[in-house]
């Protein structure tokens, strides 16, 4: 039997006392990219009587948004942005604007993509993109410039913006109508009005306090928040007609947009970043002969299907997200998890013979939260505390040997991890982590159910400790009990709202976000944890409906 000694030094014992295990603390906001101090830790409550929006600087498009937009504007489904350099992520979110400035690779990628997308549009789809009854006239060209740029820029253009594009068409059309269209597309796709979400245009008058957003700005925010794309014609029409002005107008449009297939893409994009699903790609787990790449992609699709179905079921709630027993399986997964062979190719919702309780017992997530050859109670426990409850977990002393103990044919994983809770130095923190992680011990490194491990009964009891929520804390007998408590926990529900807020507004929350964050949580709670209402609720916050005043130049 190989049983590693987890070395503990006196220094680490001393260090432990300073760790402050179990403290819930809001991390400070990201620093300003230019090196400024950025946000400070959240301070006490502030008055939310007057609108108090968070900042609204430029947001660069994400790869997801870029691909959606060229699909919606030009019918281009080639996903050109997948060749862009990856976004820098904060809290796992690629939408974070502070962490993402232009860089040489990105700007060159913009150029490459613009040229490829424009060439494809005029070569393959000219009649759809820029139809012209007379086979290509200046009138048609100028009409295209105006209509295309308006949709791409999400608002009517000023003369200063329109003139260079019109001139570019005129110059290009010397080589034919298609060439003129092609060059205009290239220029629009490299313009900052396209590449950045511009929510704040300074008004001609002096500004102060919270500024109400105009119809076009609201249309843009709605489209990016609910579709990850640009407004459709209906939104632009509402903005033009002045019927996109009040919170009720915004809510009406948000509800309409949730019925559109594109809303499903947002739920998937958020879910992948919230749960860090990209880390599933390339994961290798023992215990199966299925090709890793094939398994990883099937698992990822299974989990996103679960999320999608939960959010868009008739009454998808937070509680359902953490209790639903469905698992989406294809032929490969059915074989691995004991499902029945699906009737058709692709994924199918099934109730497996073994117990499942929502998101945290989905095979994909449990596989993600495992080591290659064994389960990972620590990783699972940390994930629940950080990602599901928004608690911060204190670090182990650096002198600890963190190699998980070798698999042992004569012991359960829980027994091998016993040192965590038997040694005083470890126990202080690890009972907070492993106590939750052990609750998942009946799911192996592939998320397969097991009542026994190495012929021994698997003990799935544990404890939730020091969350600051009395209803959540306490011993539990099994995963069902633990997950039932999380499914009904206001702390976990608020945490999901916080994560959506970070994703939607592209930043770690700052003091200026206090009121808006409270508005989202409050509305989500009052809706009974309705997941679609959470998305609508984001549009009903000060940070969505207003922007801070800008100083005069």
């Amino acid at each position: 039997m190989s049983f590693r000694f987890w070395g503990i030094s006196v220094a680490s014992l001393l260090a432990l006392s300073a760790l402050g295990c179990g403290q819930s603390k809001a991390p400070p906001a990201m620093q300003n990219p230019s090196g400024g101090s950025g946000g400070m830790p959240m301070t006490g409550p502030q008055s939310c009587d007057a609108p108090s929006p968070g900042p609204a600087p430029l947001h660069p498009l994400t790869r997801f948004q870029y691909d959606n937009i060229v699909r919606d504007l030009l019918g281009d489904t080639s996903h050109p942005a997948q060749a862009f350099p990856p976004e820098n992520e904060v809290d796992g979110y690629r939408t974070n604007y502070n962490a993402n400035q232009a860089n040489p690779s990105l700007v060159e990628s913009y150029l490459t993509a613009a040229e490829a997308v424009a060439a494809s549009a005029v070569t393959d789809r000219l009649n759809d993109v820029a139809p012209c009854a007379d086979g290509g006239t200046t009138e048609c060209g100028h009409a295209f410039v105006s209509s295309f740029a308006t949709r791409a820029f999400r608002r009517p253009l000023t003369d200063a913006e329109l003139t260079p594009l019109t001139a570019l068409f005129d110059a290009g059309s010397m080589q034919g109508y298609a060439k003129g269209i092609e060059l205009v597309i290239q220029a629009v796709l490299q313009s900052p009005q396209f590449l950045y979400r511009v929510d704040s245009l300074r008004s001609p008058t002096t500004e102060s306090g919270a500024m109400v957003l105009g119809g076009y700005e609201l249309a843009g925010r709605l489209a990016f928040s609910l579709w990850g794309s640009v407004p459709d014609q209906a939104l632009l029409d509402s903005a033009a007609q002045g019927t996109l002005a009040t919170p009720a107008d915004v809510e009406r449009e948000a509800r309409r947009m949730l019925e559109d297939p594109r809303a499903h893409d947002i739920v998937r994009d958020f879910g992948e970043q919230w749960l860090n699903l990209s880390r599933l790609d390339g994961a290798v787990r023992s215990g199966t002969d299925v090709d890793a790449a094939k398994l990883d992609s099937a698992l990822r699709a299974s989990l996103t299907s679960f999320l999608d179905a939960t959010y868009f079921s008739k009454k998808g709630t937070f509680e359902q997200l953490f209790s639903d027993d469905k698992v989406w399986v294809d032929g490969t997964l059915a074989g691995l998890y004991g499902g029945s062979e699906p009737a058709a190719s692709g994924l199918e919702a099934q109730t497996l013979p073994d117990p499942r309780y929502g998101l945290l017992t989905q095979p994909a997530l449990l596989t993600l939260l495992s080591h290659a050859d064994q389960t990972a109670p620590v990783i699972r426990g940390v994930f629940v505390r950080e990602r599901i409850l928004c608690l911060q977990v204190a670090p182990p002393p650096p002198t600890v040997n963190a190699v998980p103990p070798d698999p042992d044919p004569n012991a359960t994983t829980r027994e091998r991890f016993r040192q965590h809770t038997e040694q005083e130095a470890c126990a202080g923190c690890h009972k907070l982590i492993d106590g939750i992680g052990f609750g998942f011990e009946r799911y192996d490194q592939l998320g397969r159910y097991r009542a026994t491990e190495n012929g021994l009964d698997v003990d799935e009891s544990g404890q939730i400790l020091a969350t600051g929520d009395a209803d959540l804390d306490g011993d539990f007998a099994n995963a069902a009990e633990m997950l039932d408590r999380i499914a009904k926990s206001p702390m976990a529900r608020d945490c999901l709202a916080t994560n959506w807020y970070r994703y939607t507004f592209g930043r770690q929350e700052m003091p200026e976000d206090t009121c808006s964050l409270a508005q989202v949580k409050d509305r989500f709670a009052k809706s009974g944890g309705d997941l679609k209402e959470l998305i609508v609720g984001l549009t009903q916050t000060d940070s969505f409906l207003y922007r801070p005043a800008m100083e005069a130049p």
Partner: protein
Amino acid sequence: MSRTFSRRNLLRAASGAAIALPLLPSMRGRASAQTAETPKRFVTMYTPNGVIHEDWWPTNVKNEGEFDLSVSHAPLKAYQDRLLILGGIEMKVASTGTAPGGPHQRGIGGLFTNMTLGEGAFVDGCGRTAGWATGISVDQRIANVIGAQSPVASLQLGVRATENDVQGRISYAGPGMPLPPLATPLDVYTRVFGNFMPPSTTPDQDAARALLAQRKSVLDAVASEFSALETRLSSQDKQTLDAHLTLVRDVERRLSLGIGDCAKPDEPPTLDPVSETDMPTIANLHLDLLAIAFACDLTRVASFEISTALNRIRYPWVKSIGEGHALSHAGVSDADARLQLTARQTWHSSLIARLFDRLAIIAEGDGSVLDSTLLFWGNEVSMGTTHSHDNMPFLLGGGTWAFKTGRYLQYKGDSHGNLLVSLLNAMGVPDTTFGNPEFCTGALSGLA
């Protein structure tokens, strides 16, 4: 000594997948045409989680010039006279003070910047938080000087460096401005060879000129759009766009430079950037493309990042099947973990040898491209058991123009910031300090 390029030599040097260097009268294209002087090239290389010191430092040390390479560096035997192994240097920017971040974060952020991390929300897997490094990295400082005229100012190459936060970034364009690495050889190929003017001798020349003229008219219109928008933005947003527009104009200028007489190499295959099966091939092909980019003088600066701090990556091709970071917490007393950890370092050394093999067979001036290349290999911590930042496992290799190589030097806790100044000076950047002056007193002594 004069070396001549031979395809046979290259094939002999190659192991596994390789990209053939194009056979042309002159591999040096732009360099020979534009400057009489041989260009200098610079590479930073990063590998994570510290090393097993017992297997890292030279053995049988008689004096600074007489020693045997350790098992970690065994693949570099042929290049021992081109190496400088630097013991006893402390990464004070990471070990000292109360700046944010855990040891891996502070280490990777400070390694090439000599700057501390800002406040931020990145959790280091152990609960400590930090933001990005607060200064430019040494490769970018060098690129700003010697890369300004290159078609590609610098290349960031990543091998499974897919964590997109502070633990996955080694190059910084400025404070809080990390540069993401290219993940696959195809990405590198596209960036280096995708957009450039074909050689002047090909019949595509007229079409290429027309394309450039057309691109200019498009980008002129784009510049007008920038101007039109900026008048209505806050000063912070205006700065964002000014920086962006500068890059647009820079890309335009670089794309007009062309690739001289260099032919495009074969397009590399599609590989999965997160696959542990593809990982060694990605590393090999990245370096093959880098060798061509150097030889053709398409770029002069690169960073090469192998996975990320705190990773959970296995190296099954060298029988290292533990998960990287967890494995590194085991000490020298754990014989199996030690073998697995050192096997990784030996493989890392073999990558350097692969790059050197390629550069050494490309003649340039009186020598080879290797003679004008300087590589600095660093790590974000010294050893996984302690996460300390003293006695950092640092290695220099390549050309001998600036330093007296073939030596194993022992320093007494000198700050690694001083080493970065020496690297700048070697590359022709006459700075006397770099990064945080608290951890930098000038160039490191004893290298020349």
